[in-house]
């Protein structure tokens, strides 16, 4: 079963491509990066042994071009492809094409992806594996009429979801029957635009659910273990913003029950490599299967911090045919980890994306801090891709220590030239409800709707003024715009008035 892996093509960009390259390097594997025209100077290119251009900036002409990527694999002699997350990572045709090309796809076999990757198929598999799930349609809805019938059976409120999708695209909450038809059309057309398939299904809407997911790792030999859970309830527009491991509300017993259910599902589909089973958990600790992500997740570092395991190295070992090497009882959780997704977006202005050149970058460090960063000072963040700049992770003996450590690190962090959501994290991590673990998937939207805590910085105005004056004095060194202090305030005022006239 051993498949020799010596050179890995990383079919992704940004921090996750760098993450995979680092794991490969640590294991003595050669690395091949691919890049679009926007990414010639990107960090993942600079860390790779080899790098090949794919095409123009748009992902459809570069990172989504499986044919070009396999051509690079052939040219470079890469014997394996790591897809990262997003892009082609859940594309079964690409996984199959890799196999056909004689290249190891570092992920599950196409057959398992087909059974578990589609949300509707995965729901059928979950039913077969005896896993609790949210009541709703198991197959895609053929029409508005069918949607109305199913919704009527399970009762409002319901949630419409794209079968092929993720990341909140093609999703609509429907609270009353009269809203269903419009929402159905909207969700379906958004799904069509986003994923090339308009198939949508429908579920009972769970009130104030937590989003909690189980990390799995399975090998070729039928071994499958769970590496604890992650709490991902802090979301904005269905996008995770902060992730933690473990969850503040998951007991040892609940963890075991969710973990065993997830393992059952994976084994039923012949799953191999890393995967994540997502659940909704309600206030009574009932858990409901949501979907399975058949790939590495953005938030895998928090699991690594509390288990002490390297999941990408595990992926590479499993993909080369090695057995897992650890048993379920060897997995011990210790401490608490929190991850913040640092995005190039402006939380003070509708979270507008903020591409552009990074002019200053002061990164935090020290005890308990891990940063998986995909950018550097001087780099121009392109407008063509996901706005994630970096994942900042803090570990601590307790949840409170991890949170306080993250706040310390965020206070150290300065990104200049573009806007980031650092201040959003500072607000969340200081929020009483968050600190008490009172979170659900609607938590962040509620926080953002509430009056922002007018938690002004504690730096006196005079200090800020002095600093601003010093910086502007440096900036105007060559061509001073300010005048020297040789006249009275009245004279100066008069002069300003004169200029205004």
């Amino acid at each position: 079963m051993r498949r020799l892996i010596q050179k890995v093509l990383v079919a992704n960009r940004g921090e996750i491509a760098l993450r995979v390259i680092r794991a490969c390097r640590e294991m003595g594997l050669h690395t091949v990066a691919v890049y679009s025209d926007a990414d010639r100077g990107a960090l993942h290119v600079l860390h790779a042994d080899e790098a090949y251009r794919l095409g123009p900036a748009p992902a459809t002409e570069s990172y989504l071009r499986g044919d070009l990527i396999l051509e690079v694999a052939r040219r470079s002699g890469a014997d394996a492809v790591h897809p990262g997350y997003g892009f082609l990572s859940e594309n079964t045709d690409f996984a199959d094409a890799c196999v056909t090309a004689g290249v190891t796809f570092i992920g599950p076999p196409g057959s398992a992806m087909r059974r578990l990757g589609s949300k509707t198929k995965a729901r059928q598999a979950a039913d077969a594996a005896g896993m609790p799930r949210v009541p709703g349609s198991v197959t895609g809805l053929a029409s508005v009429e069918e949607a109305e019938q199913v919704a009527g059976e399970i009762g409002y409120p319901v949630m419409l979801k794209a079968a092929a999708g993720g990341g909140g695209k093609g999703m609509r909450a429907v609270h009353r029957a009269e809203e269903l038809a419009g929402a159905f059309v909207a969700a379906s057309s958004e799904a069509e635009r986003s994923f090339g398939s308009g198939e949508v299904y429908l579920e009972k809407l769970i009130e104030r659910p937590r989003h909690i997911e189980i990390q799995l790792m399975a090998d070729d030999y039928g071994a499958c273990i769970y590496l604890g859970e992650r709490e991902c309830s802090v979301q904005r527009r269905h996008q995770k913003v902060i992730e933690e491991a473990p969850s503040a509300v998951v007991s040892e017993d609940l963890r075991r029950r969710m973990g065993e259910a997830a393992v059952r599902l994976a084994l039923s589909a012949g799953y191999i490599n890393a995967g994540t089973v997502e659940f909704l958990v309600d206030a009574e600790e009932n858990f409901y299967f949501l979907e399975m992500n058949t790939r590495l997740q953005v938030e895998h570092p928090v699991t690594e911090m509390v288990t002490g395991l390297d999941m990408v190295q595990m992926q590479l070992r499993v993909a080369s045919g090695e057995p897992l090497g650890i048993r379920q009882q060897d997995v011990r959780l210790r401490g608490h980890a929190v991850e913040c997704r640092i995005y190039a977006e402006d939380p003070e202005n509708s979270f507008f994306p903020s591409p552009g050149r990074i002019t200053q970058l002061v990164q935090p460090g020290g005890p308990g801090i891990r940063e998986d960063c995909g950018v550097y000072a001087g780099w121009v963040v392109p407008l063509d891709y996901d706005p994630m700049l970096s994942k900042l992770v803090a570990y601590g003996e307790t949840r409170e220590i991890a949170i306080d450590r993250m706040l310390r690190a965020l206070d150290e962090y300065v990104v200049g030239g573009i806007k980031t959501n650092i201040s959003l994290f500072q607000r969340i991590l200081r929020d009483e409800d968050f600190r008490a673990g009172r979170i659900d998937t609607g938590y962040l939207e509620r926080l953002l709707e509430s009056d922002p805590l007018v938690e002004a910085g504690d730096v006196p105005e005079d200090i800020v003024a002095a600093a601003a004056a010093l910086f502007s004095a440096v900036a105007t060194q060559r061509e001073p715009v300010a005048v020297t202090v040789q006249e009275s305030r009245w004279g100066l005022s008069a002069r300003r008035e004169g200029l205004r006239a």
Partner: protein
Amino acid sequence: MGAVRPPGGIAGMTVWLEVEGKQCKVELPEGLRDGGTGECVVDGRALGVDVSVLQSGVISLLVGSGRQYRCVLDGDTIVIGGRRYGFRVEDPRSLKGRRGGAAGSAGPRAVKAPMPGRVVRVLVGVGDEVAEHQGVVVIEAMKMQNELKSPKAGRVVKVPALVGETVQQGDVLVVVE
């Protein structure tokens, strides 16, 4: 109050600023911008500072009380201890120009692209009546679609935005009168 002379009688420099929305005037002794100790005068209040210039755009300020502030310049903000403080230099020579440029809220108002991106939907046409905060155009950047709102109630008089077109930050997309 009369002008305060910088210590040592060396010719200093005065900077007018708007800091966190409040106007103020800072008198700096000559040479302090390169580091060292001196007295700034902020709106007439003396402030003893020890300035250390660390890198381009990064200084450390020590004030009389012993408080230390690492200040990082980022465009029109200064980051100190993880918080941002907005400021603006008021150049006396440019006040006239700025004044002339300011548009009254009664006149036509433009919806401009807040970032580079691609126009994915135009929600209004010339002649449409729009409410304040009504969405008028959707642009996409970094995999996110962002609906831009009308800054005022009124009638759409121009729609330069074209679906599929790439726009730069500041480009006018819709004008409402």
